[in-house]
């Protein structure tokens, strides 16, 4: 069952940037695209653990700052020659607020 919770204002996330949400199982990066859509992904690149939240956001992709792996934020899949996947979480914007599906967050697996 989905259970969207308010994690903050869209304005708190820089355009083409990201902010973190801390969970018991690690951090989730919440990205904002140039056209104000949001995506939530695990903040760890499967390659060497780079913080995706610090990557450059382009279109609906993000490039890991450590070794330039590129991930499609829709699917969490690595693009191009690289092979890997990061977890994605349902997220949306409503009335300028960012909502994240709490039921999908890793804390439930810990509970």
């Amino acid at each position: 069952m989905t259970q969207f919770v308010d994690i903050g204002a869209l304005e708190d996330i820089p355009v083409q940037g990201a902010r973190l949400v801390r969970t018991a199982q690690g951090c989730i990066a919440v990205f904002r695209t140039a056209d104000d859509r949001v995506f939530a992904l695990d903040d760890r690149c499967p390659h060497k653990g780079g913080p995706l939240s610090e990557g450059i956001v382009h279109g609906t992709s993000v490039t890991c700052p450590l070794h330039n792996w590129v991930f499609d934020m829709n699917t969490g899949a690595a693009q191009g020659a690289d092979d890997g996947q990061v977890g994605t979480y349902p997220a949306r914007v409503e009335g300028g607020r960012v909502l994240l599906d709490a039921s999908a967050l890793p804390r439930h697996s810990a509970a």
Partner: protein
Amino acid sequence: MKKKLVIIGAGMASGRMLEHLFDAAPDLYDVTLFNEEPRGNYNRLMLSPVLSGEKTYEEIVTHDAGWYETHGVTCRFGEPVVRIDREAKVVHTNYRSAEYDALVIATGSAPFIIPVVGKELPGVVTYRDLEDTHAMIDAGIAGKDAVVIGGGLLGLEAAAGMAARGASVTVIHLMDHLMERQLDPAAGYLLKKDLESRGIKVHCKGATKAILGHERAEAVLLEDGTVYPADLVCMAVGIRPETRIAVDAKLEVERGITVDDSMRTTDPSIFALGECVEHRQQLFGLVAPLYDQARVLAQTLQGEAAEFRPVQTATKLKVTGCDLFSAGDFADGEGREDIVFRDPGRGIYKRLVLKDNRIIGIVMYGDTADGNWFYGLLKDGTDVSEMRDTLIFGPAFQGGGAPDPMAAVAALPPEAEICGCNGICKGQIVEAVQGGATSLDAVRAQTKASGSCGTCTGLVEQVMQFTLGDDFTAAAPACMCGCTDHSHEDVRRLIKSMGLKSIPAVMQELGWKTPGGCHSCRPALNFYLLAEWPTEYRDDRQSRFVNERNHANIQKDGTYSVVPRMWGGVTTPAELRAIADAADKYDVPMVKVTGGQRIDLLGVSKEDLPHMWADLNEAGLVSGHAYSKGLRTVKTCVGKDFCRFGTQDSTGLGIRLEKLLWGSWTPHKVKLGVSGCPRNCAEATCKDVGVVCVDSGYNISVAGAAGMEVKETEHLASTPSEDEAVEIITAFIQLYRENAKYLDRPYKWVAKVGLDWVIERVVDDLAGRQALVERFELSQSVYRKDPWAAHSTDRERAKWAPMADFTLEAAE
């Protein structure tokens, strides 16, 4: 005994003719070359880039003094021939005479001046040679009004060039649409719109009545009563063959000097070449047929049989960012059919005129990539009935294969023309490559391909790649990244010439293929924009690599390292205490001295960064920019105050340089070293800029490296004065900022442009040097800021922490 060859006119046609002649028969003639212009041969096609400031005269010279000397040519520059005595076979100038066995008249053409009132006023110029170009540049037209009369090729190039120099330009054109000889009305309309979007006014159907003004030109009056203010009026309504000398000599002259197929005039000892000739009732203005004539005449002069057969030529407009292609005949007529493609949203228009299933005319605007392919079909008279359905979409869509540029090049026949300016076909390039020319420069030197207007450079490279296979390494990657077909150099040039002032503007205007660029092009664009428009551009933080966005170096585990600036490597006990306190307070796992004489605090979490900066700021420390594509460190030795060998105050100079240059963004990191004597304890000779102080002053050297490559610096200048040393170094850094490709260290950039070019600008040219320094200071007035101070406020600090925390909830 060598025969005597006299040539009147040192233009592109006669220059090319001499090349052919010396290649084939270097010892056949004693050559004397007269020229009215006080110089030898330069590439007239490139006057537009000189006018717009994209090139200098030196860059367009095709034959320098050394070339003439090597080939034993007697040069009489600035000395026009006034009379030909055909009886005695002698030409006369006002000073001397010269005998000839063979005479070549290559006097070119003169601009046509329309006979209106005011045409002699100062401020009215033509656009034909270097003097005209300089007259326009020297008029200091930035911010002033200019009117160009004539909307043909030359007029539009003059207009775009003056607009690029900041003039407010109006083009007056007599006909219904621009470039009516090359374009149909639809393409002419798009061109007009394109020019108007760059701020150039266009007035079609405008007949000039008079040029108004008393002391000098002030305005242009049209027949319909319109008046345009004009500080400068450029007449570019057309050219006529320069035939006066031939008329006086009683040679047969119609519109031009009449020649036969071997380029011989009605006097068997006299030949004519270039824009001054008329061949079978036809005149020639484009360069390709002139080069054909040059080849034919060179053979004729060797006593070989050769025939000039003019071929169809294609036209391109050399105005940056205007893509236009035209060839053949596109007028309406019996039995002609049109295939037209329009995409108004993108400003693209393509039209093919067909007759009997063969292309006879091509007009393209906005997207001319397939121009040469269509042109090949036109020239070969290929029957296109089979591919008619998809013809307009170009070669990629023929046969249903994926659009592979290499396949298209591979499919071209050997006689397909690659370089239109020089009439070089694929076979000649392949031959040159197989003969050992494996770099673009070598191919250019041997065949001239891509050596004139340069628009075919990509195609030439593709032919080379096709011939060499994996052995080919392009001189530079053709494009910036997968998001665009433009190279870094093109993008920089276009940002400037098109006045693009934001990343979205660049992406929109230059046709980016991705919606938001990528991690490779965005940081480069951000730098190019801030370097070009320091006072207008707003830095885009999200287009910066993580290190610059967070003002610290990211480490492999996602923590950061913090390096406070220590000017010239000098610190104080108080600063050291503050650093030690910060290391304690934020549990820094490692404190290390860097290679550049600074202290590195490793392993700091992102959230702690702004707090730590605030503490360090309080002790007077600012960011060391150890993370930046910008000035890093100035490494020093102890200098004369302490060292028994030290000369000059090298430590003081290092501090002075660091305080001047810090905070500046550059294409890549920049490191300096200042040593107090040739023992070079600061290792200045493997830095981007190194100074070695000696008794007589300061030896400045540049372009060293000690990273992926190890390279000693090269000597830039020596000066007794510390002030001058500082000025030269500042100018060097600014020249690097303005010209280098993003992520090229100075040593790579200097290797590309040549140290001599750099020396000319930052050492020899005093005014140029000072202008560079001024532009650097202007940029610094905006960008020299301590990022730590800006981010250590409470409000900013909050942004460095997570926006939500679910760990507490989970613990319940």
